[in-house]
């Protein structure tokens, strides 16, 4: 009679393109030149978007937002591995994921300037509106994935993003468990950027990796260099292939770093050292990806300058569009409480508008 081993598990780590831009040829994914270019462009666009938004915010022309700088590979490359049939369910820190799918930057800006108009990206693009309650969106992803299974949309899986902090919420556990029980086509991508506001990763969980959470649900799990776009692409691709084949969910831990503040309301100097930040700048996903593309002959000084110019022009344009928008009907909230209008709420609208008129009359 026994004390016997009944289960063995292991967790692996994947890196394909290292900090210096050197690629592991055996593992290198086969992306077309166009695909590589779109991926790099979107990552750069996300980076430049952060920079511009920070400026706008500091000038009082934009509300609070949370920059994604440093995480561009982790949240953009997964989308480059997906098809348009796959869904994206994320938070407010994955600009690259949304922009990759064609969300107009002007809308993204409107959102962070306090307008619901910024959350109206075409549902046909299969990107859910941004979610603020951490981890809650991971359950939406599971329900969505169930619906895809139910409707027989075999080519449609769901990619959902969350942060290292969000992994501590009960909702994340429930999402992993439901996805596993239902064998739902979901790819959970944890953006482990080492910080949840001021709380370091090691205080979120004592486990060495977040990827090993997968063991609890007999689910494939892997830790990936989240600053390596090729590894992120490859890990997501494999997970999506399994999901499409009916083989259920996967957990991917992307090890990355939030290079800037949590949001513009935050000051990281309160809780972390600039040395730490400097170390991570050396692992910048854009730098290594640029080296890779240059080595492949897909980019050089000149074409990079052209790309930067093109992106700047796009951002300029979208900022103009965003700032030129004036059609913000005040009573719009009354339109969207319920689809079926209720007389009592409609009367409140009338009172609301009358009040506005009186205030306008009083100056």
């Amino acid at each position: 009679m026994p004390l016997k081993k009944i289960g063995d598990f292991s967790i692996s780590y994947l890196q394909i393109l290292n900090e210096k831009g050197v690629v592991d040829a055996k593992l290198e994914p086969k992306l077309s030149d166009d695909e590589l270019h779109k991926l790099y462009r979107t990552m750069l666009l996300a980076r430049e978007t952060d920079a511009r938004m920070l400026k706008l915010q500091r000038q009082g022309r934009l509300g609070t937002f949370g920059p994604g700088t440093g995480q561009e590979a982790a949240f953009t490359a997964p989308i480059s591995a997906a098809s348009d049939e796959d869904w994206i369910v994320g938070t407010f820190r994955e600009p690259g994921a949304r922009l990759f799918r064609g969300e107009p930057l002007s809308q993204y800006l409107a959102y962070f300037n306090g307008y619901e108009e910024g959350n109206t990206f075409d549902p046909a693009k299969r990107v859910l509106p941004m979610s603020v309650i951490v981890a809650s969106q991971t359950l939406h992803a599971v329900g969505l994935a169930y619906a895809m299974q139910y409707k027989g949309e075999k080519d449609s899986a769901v990619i959902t993003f969350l942060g290292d902090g969000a992994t501590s919420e009960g909702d994340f556990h429930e999402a992993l468990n439901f996805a596993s029980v239902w064998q739902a086509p979901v790819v959970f991508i944890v953006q482990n950027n080492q910080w949840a506001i001021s709380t370091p990763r090691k205080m979120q969980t004592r486990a060495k990796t977040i990827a090993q959470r997968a063991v609890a649900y007999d689910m494939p799990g892997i830790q990936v260099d989240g600053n390596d776009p090729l590894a992120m692409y490859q890990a997501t691709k494999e997970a999506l292939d399994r999901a499409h084949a009916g083989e259920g969910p996967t957990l991917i831990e992307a090890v990355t770093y939030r290079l800037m503040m949590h949001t513009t309301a935050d000051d990281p100097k309160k809780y972390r050292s600039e040395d730490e930040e400097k170390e991570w700048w050396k692992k910048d996903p854009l730098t290594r990806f640029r080296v890779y593309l240059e080595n492949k002959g897909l980019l050089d000084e000149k074409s990079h300058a052209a790309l930067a110019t093109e992106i700047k022009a796009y951002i300029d344009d979208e900022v103009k569009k965003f700032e030129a928008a004036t059609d913000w009907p005040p009573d719009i909230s009354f339109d969207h409480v319920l689809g079926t209008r209720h007389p009592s709420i409609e009367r409140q609208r009338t009172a609301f508008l009358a009040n506005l008129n009186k205030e306008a009359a009083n100056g």
Partner: protein
Amino acid sequence: MAKLNMVQAINLALTEEMANDENVIVLGEDVGVDGGVFRVTDGLHDKFGEKRVIDTPLAESAIVGASIGMAMAGLRPVAEMQFSGFSYLSIPQLEGNASRMRARTMGKWTCPLVLRMPYGGAVRALEHHSESREAMYATIPGVTVVIPSGPRNARALMLAAIRDPDPVVFMEPKRSYRAFREEVPEEEEVRELGKAQVVQAGTDLTVVAWGAMMRPTLKAVDLIQKKRNITIELIDLLTIAPMDADTIVESVKKTGRCVVVQEAPRSFGASSEIVARINDDALLYLEAPVGRVTNYDVVTPYFGREMMYLPDEQRIARSLEETLDF
């Protein structure tokens, strides 16, 4: 026409609408093979299969969170919370996501889901199985809170709830599940949400109740009508939020007197909201303070004592008389 109890009537509505619309999905703890701990979903698993009638793991937030994802993909999930006392685990998903999806996206995304839950006391159950907290849900804009009072309106409201384009919290008075039967029409009957029902017209007093309180209220109303040879207008609230105060206000303008019967604790309940609406729109018509028969502001007692705390026919009758005599 068949004589059904409320469990059968809700079961009928679910069966009908699942047959009508393959987007309707039922999910929750023990709703499948077992047919639910109250048997409300009995037989659905056999009829529609495990893909449409899902026995989920034990996790209320996940049940509603996943329902939101399903709803956003075009399905019409009907999720069961085994008891309203455990439904608060799903409030973060309901308040934080379901209720806001339409407002958040200016109608680009919606969340048509029904959250069914047995609620209320008098069934001799353990802690957490007897509360009446409809007001908690009613504080959330973007959610419709519905409480049927009998088999027939339960069936007709459930059909409306499933077809509603937004989240509906459907609270089922478990005390009334098998308490009585009613004729339920065979043909489809749908009752519009957001509307109260004048159950009987009257001129001397307005009485408002809902859910399991309708039965003792009806008896008290009968008693006092006969005793005093008067007519009482009885209103079944049916939808708690958004509230159809107009029907109550119109009635009070006619009768000048009103009593509200509420199973929930006295403070911060729907009876307070009704008084506020009468204050807003019909104060000058009042010939007496609005009478309120309610539970008390105590933690719901275990079942050994609960019946003493719940409004009953006698207490309601006394309140009607006090308001009439004021």
